[in-house]
């Protein structure tokens, strides 16, 4: 009992610390920078369920970011301006589409999985930019007017930020539980050897399907929250070429570890923010970063820190 208690304290403390830090950071850093960090972190966490734990890397995860963003925006425009209802329904929509997509997406792993997801992302981007351009606004996007709720007036930036951090806190606690759960170990076992997991009597397709739906729903949540923050949704967010960003963020930090994903999301957003403002050749800089990263610290920065402290595997 006391062991468990001590364990949960050590688990909760860093998360609480991070949440408090996010509130304090608001005094020094810009609102949009922090919003980007939080939404991007949720996105990376979602992506990493598949990439880090299960070892299945999708090259088209922007699709789900876009799905969440558009489901949220279109719900508010055409069905009901209540942002909470819109948030919930966008998650339901993403989960349903993910459920249907999973039957094709999960038929094979490795390069097939990576590229079929890229194909989905290209399809989604096409639908948004060409046939449904009038509804989605294409590259220009559409603006969203949320209804101000009694206690949660999301049109007030500070209120929205508070809500965002709270949602983030809930996600972090739940994700930490997930990372220590037997389900996450099943995913890791699939990463090691799927056939063996099957021989143990598990329905591996069902497990992968649940992971896929969790992953896309979490990514969609990031998209919805992003749309809510800036009050608009646009196709730019789901350009298939941007799929790379989340992969890189997960790798910089350390894929398959809770803190690694958070660190990666933070470093990527910060790097992009700083570098694109100061460096003309942003692509060259990014390219060199990838090459150096891949040839020197392949476990990501989190593994480097862990080695420096001499701690164990998280």
């Amino acid at each position, binding site marked *: 009992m006391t062991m468990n208690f001590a364990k949960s304290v050590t688990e909760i403390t860093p998360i609480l610390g991070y949440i408090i830090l996010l509130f304090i950071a608001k005094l020094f850093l810009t609102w949009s920078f922090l919003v980007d960090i939080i939404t991007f972190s949720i996105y990376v966490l979602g992506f990493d369920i598949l990439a880090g734990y299960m070892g299945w890397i999708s090259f088209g995860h922007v699709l789900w970011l876009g799905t969440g963003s558009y489901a949220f925006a279109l719900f508010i425009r055409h069905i009901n301006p209540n942002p909470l209802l819109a948030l919930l329904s966008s998650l339901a929509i993403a989960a349903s589409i993910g459920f249907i997509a999973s039957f094709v997406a999960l038929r094979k792993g490795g390069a097939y999985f990576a*590229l079929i997801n890229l194909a989905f992302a290209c399809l989604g981007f096409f639908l948004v930019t060409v046939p449904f351009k009038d509804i989605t606004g294409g590259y220009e996007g559409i603006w969203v007017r949320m209804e101000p709720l009694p206690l949660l007036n999301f049109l007030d930036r500070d209120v929205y930020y508070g809500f965002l951090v709270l949602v983030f806190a809930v996600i972090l606690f739940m994700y930490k539980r997930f990372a220590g759960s037997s389900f996450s170990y099943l995913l890791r076992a699939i990463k090691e050897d799927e056939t063996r997991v099957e021989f143990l009597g598990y329905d591996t397709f069902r497990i992968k399907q649940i992971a896929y739906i969790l992953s896309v729903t979490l990514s969609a949540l990031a998209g919805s929250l992003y749309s809510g923050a800036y009050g608009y949704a646009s196709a730019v967010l789901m350009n298939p070429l941007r799929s790379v960003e989340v992969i890189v963020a997960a790798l910089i930090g350390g894929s398959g570890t809770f803190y690694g994903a958070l660190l990666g999301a933070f470093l990527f957003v910060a790097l992009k923010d700083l570098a694109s403002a100061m460096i003309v050749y942003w692509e060259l800089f990014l*390219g060199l970063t990838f090459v150096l990263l891949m040839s020197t610290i392949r476990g990501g920065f989190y593994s480097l820190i862990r080695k420096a402290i001499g701690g164990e595997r998280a």
Partner: protein
Amino acid sequence: MMDVVFLIALYGLSLGFIYALIAIGLSLIFGYMGILNVAHGTFYALGAYLVYTTLKTTDNFWLGVLVGFSIVTLLGAILERTFMRRLYGKDVVYTLVMTLGLELIFIDAIKITWGLEPKPIGDPIQVSLIIPVLGISFPMYRLVVIFVGLILYVGLWLFLTRTMVGKVVIAGIEDLSGIQALGINPLRTFTLIFALGAGLAAVGGALYSPIIMPFPYMGFEIILYSFAIVVMGGLANLKGTLIAAIITGEAVAITGYVYSSATAVIPFIILVVVLAVKPEGLFGT
């Protein structure tokens, strides 16, 4: 009506052979070395740009194609020796990020060397063939593209099936540790295949350069198409890749005529349909 059908089929076929030149190298490199090479797009772009530069200095298009092929093959060999070596046996995603990094570096290098604006290259043959019965006239150049593509494909096929080195590569795609167990060191063939794949992509870009004007991001665009083609045909399958490339070329040509804003997505629609029916690709095992 007949003339339109004929022209679309011809254009599609020439596009298909250009795609095949790029996708075959990508497919071999992935099948043999396990590297998903995003930087392959650079080889294609450099092939096109080197034609432009050669054309400016010597006024000879075909010399440009040769220069493109030679320089890019050499570049491929150097890259294999320096960067790709570090990636063998690593997870596919690491190879993706590393080569993406190289691709980004090369895109900026192209921007610095040649600037941002697309470079115009005229039709190198400027002869139109006329078929009087059908009342069709079409640029001779398209036929030349198909012809060159076909010759290179047959040449590669003969090399892989009739020479000892080629057979080692084919066997290595099947079972890499198997050929190592026979005492064969595959590292040298890795350099060869990577360089050859790079050179073929350069020829693809060079042949395509009069049809589209070379621009810095052209490699990025083609790489998405090529990935779709490689998976559609079945990984590391020479025949499958060629057929998938031709299907894609024809589909792009037809879409370009019927509903041109969908050309960018049509390869992926075909890919999803193919994989939904047959996850290992058209000719995969």
